[in-house]
Every structure is written in C-alpha cells, then in structure tokens.
C-alpha cells in the first residue's frame, strides 16, 4: 500500500552485527542503571547492635531497626511526637518519631522502626510497626524480643508514604 520505493536491502550479517551491538550497549546501560538504582535504595534490616557496629556507615542510609521498646523509656511529646529506646539486650538506640503508634505499642513489645540515624545520635523514624508474631500468646514478663525475628515478621507488611498535597 506504500508508494515508496523498495528499501535498500540490508545485508543479513550487517543487520545482525548492528542489532548485536545495540543490544550490548542497551544491556550495559541498563545494568548500570539497575545497579545504581538498587544501591541507592537499599533498606538495611538491623538491630541496635548492628546499627552501632556500622558506625559512620549508618548515617544517611535507610534502616529498618528492629528490637524491643525499653521499659520506662517511652516519652510522649507535643502533638504526636514520641520518643523511646529500642534495645536488643546489648545495645540501645534512641528513637524519635511523629507517626501515630499502632494499637499494640507499649513498653516491652517488639517494634520495627524505619528511618535514618542522625548525627545528633538519635534515630529519626517516619514509620513505626509493631511486629506481628505468629505466636498465639502474649509475651511473658522479662522475655526479650529477638530483633531478627521482629524484623522478619514485618517484612512484606509494606507501607507507603502518601504524598502531601502542595
């Protein structure tokens, strides 16, 4: 249906080489972008000990910190601001958050907070999750919460930060 003259025929081998070259270039570029994208958006799953051990590496990275809310550390501030310590038996990290705590939030419970470590020495969090255990019982007194288990239990319970209207 087209009135244009027959196209100049490309030799099969030339087409193939060009296609191969284009594919290699596109593939390499894509791999670079992907690797960069992943590298910048990793979320580390750490307990307080791992967070302290990471030292300067912890600043700026997105971290999902799991552990137990230390007894007697919860302090409600103005509005919905909240402070508490997350402990794992060996280390503790001070957490500040403005998110509204979930129903089960209280001292001694396993929590996972997502956010970043600040230079000022506290963990700034926008998300606060209570770990969902599969166990069908309340934790006994003096029982410690395994940080790794707590983090695992919230994996997949993703949340999305809604965009604030301008």
């Amino acid at each position: 249906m087209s009135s244009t003259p027959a196209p100049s025929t490309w030799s099969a081998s030339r087409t193939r080489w060009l296609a191969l070259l284009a594919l290699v270039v596109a593939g390499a570029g894509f791999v670079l972008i992907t690797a960069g994208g992943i590298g910048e958006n990793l979320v580390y799953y750490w307990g307080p000990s791992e967070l302290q051990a990471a030292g300067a590496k912890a600043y700026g990275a997105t971290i999902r910190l799991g552990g137990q809310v230390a007894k007697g550390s919860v302090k409600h501030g103005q509005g919905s601001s909240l402070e508490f310590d997350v402990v794992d038996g060996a280390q503790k990290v001070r957490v500040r958050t403005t998110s509204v705590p979930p129903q089960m939030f209280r001292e001694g419970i396993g929590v996972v907070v997502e956010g970043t470590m600040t230079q000022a020495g506290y963990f700034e969090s926008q998300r606060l999750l209570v770990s969902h255990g599969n166990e069908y019982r309340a934790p006994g007194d003096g029982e410690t919460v395994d940080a790794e288990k707590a983090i695992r239990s919230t994996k997949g319970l993703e949340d999305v930060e809604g965009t604030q209207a301008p």
Partner: protein
Amino acid sequence: MAGWAWTRRLAYVYAASMIAANLLMVYALLARDFSVSYVAHVGSRAVPNWVAVVSLWSSLEGSILFWGLVLGLYIGGATYTNRDRHPEYMPWATGVWLACAAFFSFLVAGPAQPFLTIPSPPTDGPGPNPLLQNHLLMVIHPPLLYAGYVGMTIPFGLAAAALLTGRLGHDFLRPLRTWLMLPWAFLTVAIVLGGWWAYEVLGWGGYWAWDPVENASFLPWLTATAAFHSALLMERKGVLKGWTVTLILATFLLTILGTFMTRSGVFNSVHSFTQSAIGPTILVFLAAATLFCVGLLATRVDRLAPEGGLEPSVSRDTAFLLNNLLFVLLTFTVLVGTVFPLVVEATRGTQMSVGRPYFDRMAVPIGVALLFLMGIGPALPWGRASRVQMRQALLPPLAAAGVFTALGLLAGVRHPWTLVALFCGGYTAQVTLGELWLPVARRMRAHGEGLGAAVSGVQGRARRRVAGYLVHAGAVLALVAVAVSSTEGITTEVQVARGEAVTLGPYTLTFQGVDQLSEPHREAVVANVAVRRGDRDLGLLQPRMNYYASQREPIGTPAVRSSLRHDLYLSVLNIDPEGRSIGLHAMINPMVVWLWIATLVMGLGGLLGLLPSRRVHAAAALAAPPAGEGLEAAR
C-alpha cells in the same frame, strides 16, 4: 493413534482424581474432621462454613492440593478441546502437561501430605490466618490467581511441544491463542484483586507496594503480555519464533519461581505462611524445568529460523519489537529488585530489602513509554509508512493528549511524571477509541445499519481485534488511574479525641466515639467518624479493630467512601479502650475506582478474545485453511 488416545485418557483421569481429592478435603474441612492434619492445622469450629471452604487454599499444604485441582481442570479442558486437532502435535503438549502434573502430585503426596492422619486429634483448631478471614475478596482472589498462575502450564506445554516436534506454525499458534489468553485474563484480574484486597484490608491506603509476593504474580504477567505481542508478529511475519517460545517458557519458569518465593517462607510476608520441605522440592523442580527449557532451545535452534524479515522502519512492526524490549526490561528490573535481597542474604547473611523508590524509579519511565507505544503502534501501518502516512496517523491523537494534560493541570496536577502519563494516556486513548469506533462507523455508513447492529457485526467479524483494543482501553485507564492515585493523594495521621474534628481536603472528620461488636469468629471495636463535606452531612465511616481469639495483635479494617473522583479512606492505628481517642490515618486517594473499572474492561476484553471469531469459523467450515492463512483472516 492409540498412544494419543491413552494420553488423553490419562489427562482425564488426572483431572478426575484431583477433583475427587479436593472434594474430599472440602468435606473434611466442613465436617471439622480434626484427625486430618490439614484440618487440624487450619480448621476451626468457630468459623462460618464459607471460611471453612476457603481454608482449602488458606495455608501451604491445602494450596498445593488446590493447585492440583486447577491444573487438572486446565489439562482436562485443553486436552478435550483439542482432542481431534493437531494429532502430530497435541500428544507432546499433553505429555509435558502431565509431566508437570506428576510433579505436583508428588508434591501433594510427598512433602505436603495434607491428608496425613493425626493419631490423637485435637477437639478444635486455630482457624485460618485472620487476615485471610477479614474480607470476602479472599474468596475470589486466590482461585483467580491460581487460575492465572497454574494456567501458564498450558502455554508452556504448547511451546515445549512446538520445539519438540518442530511445528511452530498453525499447530502451535492456534491453541496458544486460547490457552494463553485464558490464564492471562485470570492473572490480570487476580493481580488487581490482590491489590484491591490489600487496599480494603491492610489499611495502609495503597494497593501496590512492590512486595515480593505481588512481584511474584506480576513477573509472569509481564512476560505473558510480551509473548502475546510477539506471537502476533510471529503469526503475521513468521519472525521472532525463538523469542516467542522463550517468553512462554520464561513465563512458566517465573510462575514456578514465584511459587517458590511465596510458598517456601524465604520472604516472611502476609502470604507465606510457614517453612517446610516444600520449598526445596519446588526449587529442584525449577532447576530441572530451567535445564529442560534451555536444553530444548539449544537443540532446536535450527527450527527457529525466521521465514520472513523485518525492515528497520517506523512501523507497527517496530512498535511491536520495542514493546517486547520494554516488557522484558521491566521484567528484569522487577526480577532483580525482588531476588537481590535473597541473594545477598544467602551469600552474606545480611538482611535487607530493595526499597520502593528503586521500583518506582525504574518502572515509571518504562510504564509511561509502554503507554505511549500502545498509542503509536496501532496508529502506524504494518510494513513501511510514508511521511504523509506517518503525519496523518501520528498527529491527530495529539488533540486528546493535549486535552488530558490540560484537564490534569486544571485539576491541580503538578507532578511532572503524572502530566507526562496523562499526555501519553490521552494520545493512546484517542488512537484506541478510534480503532474501536472506526470499523463501526464504516459499517453504519456502508450498510446503513444502526449502532447496535454495527457493533455486534464488527465484534463478530473481527473479534480478536476488538478484544485487543478493549484490553488496550482498559490498560490506558488503569495506567492513568495508577499515575494519578499514586501521586495526587492527600494523607494525614493524627491522634483525635472524642468530639474533635480533623480537616482533610474538602472533608471534616469528627470522631464521635466507639461501639463494641461481637461476631462469631471475632470481637471488634468500631470507631464512629462523622463525615461532612462543606454543609453536607455524608454520614458515618466506621474503621475498626478486629480481635481474633487466636491472635495477640488486633487487625484493623479500614473504611472507604468511594466516588468516581476519589476515595476517602480512613483506618485506625489505635483505639483507646474507653473510646476517648483514636489514632486516625485519613487519606484522599484520587481515581482509585477507575483502576477497578479498568480491570473489568481488560478482563472483559480477554473473555471476548476467547470467543471464536465468526469469520474463522466460516473459513474453517469451507476448507481447512493452510497454515498461517486462516490466522491472517482473523485480523
């Protein structure tokens, strides 16, 4: 062909025994026979009967039994509909299906063992995971997902048989059309229903989080969609044979990989319930199937030579190629992001995940490009277009593109990617609706028919084409809805005292107090939130907290007020026991309803494509068409 007759009989026997096994399990669940290990594991006297039936697929062992049922129905159906067609080819396809069936039977009888008897049965069980009892959608979503997921075994068998017999023409493409479309349509609807369930139940206000479980269902959908398009090009031009077959094989492998990821407990998420020997067994099957596919492709390379050629040109052909490239890139992106944390954990022992921004950053440009291409491709002619043709085809849709963008700007959209998506969405909408409308208009003019007669005439004669564009129309709507709803929402998270009011956009929300509810399988505390918009009283929204006997933590259920414009979405983070205050998460999510509507359109398009086209029927009745010719007629 005695062999073929026996293969068919085996397929029917497999289907029948799977139906029987599943009915038996449903009976045990309804009878609360706790001497059956699976019933003891998920059954409960406290749950209503519909929950008892749904428990069939609520946990690992039962879901594998249910997989067997769906596979049985598929194999039985595909064998029956092709019983007197393609006698050289079908026995091989059926053989491959039955090999898969044998593996899943082994999985049921070996590692899963849902029918294991318990010597001292308990008097009652814990019931299924409360999250799965929380919404009626859980009754529909898993069976549809299985119908999509398991159904990909059928195209896999067809592709493997095509390679084994070297019959990559009519024998392969004709059954493929039906048996790729059917699971694809199920999978499409199931993926979105899963999102809908998350939206209605989980309470964080979104429907998609790039969760590994969601990705597991999305990956085969991407490759299957790509396979559709490359199969079309293969049918028309005799090219991309190896590519099409590879996409179909990959689709199947991705369903098995997805099953492994979600069913072995490697990701601990809502959907993966436990750890067991089932995971490693599936992994071995995945490895074996991959080896089979690679080996098959390697040894049959000589049969995959193209019959025709493609010229580099601005044409629909090129658009198809680009489409495939983009789908495969998206598949890789999602696959890498999903598997990366697993690889790191396995090799270095550190736990991490790939954050949402990675997926968004990669998927948004590809998605927008696909949206645009969905408009450009169909606008262009096959082969080679002249400059004039190109101008005539590509310029007019800019009108709707401009209108969509302007409407977005008027509505206050400022997010650059959303505006780009609206532009491309408008462009593609005009092309798609034009392709749907033009044949109808032509027919009305030519035959002097009414609108109804013309529509039915067109969809009867060119059903595949109409179905394709209907799916495209749904896809445009879905992508625009996703773009707008994920960028233009408003959200607030506050602790509200009784009597206190919160303003969100045009709404005023007043917390009025709580009610206690007692239901057979749970207790609930309901927060009464009065909704006003300006002077208008819009009644109560009642987000709630549900308490299950078997679970320490309560599970919130959000309350949603939907309209075509936006959803008002309320969920409670905490409720004070005396009802003095609640932690309220309130959101306005624009255009979400359109995503559900779009999915309905896509599903209907898929179903329409499954009905046989009248013209093909007529041609088949006159004479058996030569390979390729009969297929051409359908376009």
